[in-house]
């Protein structure tokens, strides 16, 4: 890692803004704290924290119906509580939804229980036919602009999994 690399959280937020995302809902994760903080302070976004991720997907669906591009920022454990909202709302009505997901439970994880949902994360996303991108290194952020563009072109939910290696590389 070079010290001149722009902070990865800043780059994520700039990609969201560059792709005209204006409505963002979040459920916190320690790894995402920096991104959420930037989103909250940035007037380019309407930030509405949600209490549960399926609620957040409802908020995002409403924003899309209102003409705004939405995004949700959440932890991979949320895949377990959002499958119905993804299948019967986001996918059924062809709503584009970037999901920026902290991929807990991968190598470097300190909390053993997080491994349990990590084991199912990609399988569940694959079962739902959700385009899924795995960020492991800081330079993977270069792909985010293209992924967001792809999401709004295809009008589908898209998952970006950012693992412990990605976040520690950024530190």
């Amino acid at each position, binding site marked *: 890692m070079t010290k001149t690399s722009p902070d990865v959280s800043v780059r994520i937020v700039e990609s969201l803004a560059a792709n005209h995302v*204006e*409505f963002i809902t979040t459920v916190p994760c320690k790894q995402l704290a920096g991104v959420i903080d930037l989103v909250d302070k940035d007037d380019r976004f*309407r930030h*509405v*924290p*949600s*209490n*549960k991720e*399926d*609620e*957040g*997907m*409802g*908020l*995002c*669906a*409403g*924003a*899309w*119906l*209102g*003409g*705004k591009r*939405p995004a949700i920022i959440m932890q991979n454990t949320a895949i377990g509580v959002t499958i*119905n*909202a993804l*299948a*019967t*709302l986001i996918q*059924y*009505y*062809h*709503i584009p939804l970037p999901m920026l997901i902290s991929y807990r439970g991968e190598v470097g994880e300190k909390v053993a229980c997080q491994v349990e949902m990590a084991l199912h994360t990609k399988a569940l996303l694959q079962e739902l036919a959700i385009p899924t991108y795995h960020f492991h290194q800081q330079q993977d952020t270069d792909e985010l602009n293209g992924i967001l563009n792809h999401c709004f072109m295809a009008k589908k939910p898209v998952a970006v999994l950012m693992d412990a290696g990605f976040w520690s590389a950024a530190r």
Partner: protein
Amino acid sequence: MIRSEVIQSIAPVIRDHLVVCNIGLPSQELFMHDDQPSNFYMLGTMGLASSIGLGLALSQKAKVVAIDGDGSILTNLGTLPTIANNPADNFVLLIIDNGSYGSTGDQPTYAGRKTSLAKVAEACGCENVFECPAEETAKVLEQALGSDRMTIIVSKCKSGNVPVDVIELDPVVIAHRFREEVARRNS
């Protein structure tokens, strides 16, 4: 009055506004009584009508009525603090509270027993919370829409259903015509 009659009674009041309608019988009844391109019918995903309505209200200027039920609000109770803390003065949440899960065979909900959804909404920080008997719903809703303040209405009605057909509109058609209507109203 049962829910179907409440929906019929408010149809003239909500016709000129954006409406997000709850899954199951409420959407089918609204579709039957007064289909409009400004109606967004939920065909699935129990519990998210109020969240969709809030996201919509925060994202554009036209007035939004979300028609929800007691069972659906209980499914997504976290919605009330989110609504309270992100107020949108173009948003009215109408909870038609028949004390039962109407679309699944009228099993009782806790809202029909000890739980007051109006008090829950107030405890969550919602302002302008009104509970009214079913017969007054249209009047209270009209006042709320005229007030330019975010309002939560809990309409207490009887449990019971009438036969009604499923909605055969394609979900993509529902979303597309609704988005065009939103754009037209905000232009």
